């Protein structure tokens, strides 16, 4: 899109084409001649995204209350191992750190399991396994695996880092782990896959990507 001077990440229609929309709504009477050369058909219409978002949030909220009440009901009923397994399978949401959950992994509660922090930057991927207290156990990254420069920012490098981190962790006797992902980089999914391939069992995935509420000013936009 040559008319746009600045790079916008991942938008398929330029805001310059807003003149097309404006002319259709009659908001701007002039300058339609400029958009005449670039008039394109609109993309396939979906339902309004704001409405879909509220629907999904409402449904998620309803599901959450339904899930917790379902867990309580199954516990108070004649509890067998099968009922515990079905309650574990049916819930997407993590057990709240109150007292109600009967879910155990290797004898440990959810809040006592070790955490695998995966920091997926655009140039590298770091993996650090810590205890639930915060004590660091294992630390690997694409650089420690022998990759250099551009090869570090690949999903394959993240996978090898995951495999080596899992190997070191199983040597220390860790089986179940909850994963916390930070950042949107190329190694985001493949690091978790590498952890499972290396022998650790991932029980939950959290996203801890830092979203500033307009804090520090980031660097200026790139012009490519």
């Amino acid at each position, binding site marked *: 899109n040559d008319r746009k001077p*600045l790079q916008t990440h991942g938008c398929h229609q330029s805001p310059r084409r*807003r003149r097309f929309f404006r002319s259709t709504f009659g908001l701007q009477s002039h300058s339609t001649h400029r958009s005449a050369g670039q008039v394109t058909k609109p993309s396939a219409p979906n339902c309004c995204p704001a409405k879909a978002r509220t629907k999904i949030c409402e449904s998620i909220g309803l599901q959450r209350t339904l899930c917790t009440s379902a867990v309580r009901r199954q516990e108070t009923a004649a509890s067998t191992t099968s009922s515990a397994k079905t309650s574990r399978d049916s819930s997407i949401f993590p057990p709240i750190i109150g007292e109600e959950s009967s879910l155990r992994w290797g004898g440990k509660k959810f809040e006592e399991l070790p955490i695998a922090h995966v920091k997926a930057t655009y140039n590298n991927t770091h993996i650090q396994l810590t205890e639930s207290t915060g004590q660091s156990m294992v630390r690997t990254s694409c650089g420690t695996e022998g990759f250099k420069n551009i090869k570090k920012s690949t999903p394959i490098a993240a996978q090898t880092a995951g495999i080596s981190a899992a190997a070191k962790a199983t040597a220390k006797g860790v089986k179940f782990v909850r994963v916390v992902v930070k950042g949107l980089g190329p190694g985001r999914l493949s690091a978790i896959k590498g952890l499972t391939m290396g022998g650790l069992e991932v029980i939950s995935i*959290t996203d801890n990507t830092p979203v500033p509420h307009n804090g520090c000013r980031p660097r200026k936009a790139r012009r490519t």
Partner: protein
Amino acid sequence: MSRHLRFIARTVMVQNGNVDEAYKILNRILTHDGVIDAVKRKRYYEKPCRERQRKNFENCRRIYHSEMARKITFISVTNREDPWLGC
């Protein structure tokens, strides 16, 4: 996120060892909540004039898509009551 309780928001449990499925669910939740868009946008600074243009563009796009979807659902209704019934 140091001021918030951990492992409550943006968390998905893995069911039956399906890590890919859980990651897809997490991604869908994040995109619907606008988190992924916000992170991508805040990577580089967006000047206020560009931000106003983008918001305007997204407003117009939202109106256009909702109107078009309404029209299409109206036109694609096939089971209408017979207007000439009784003739």
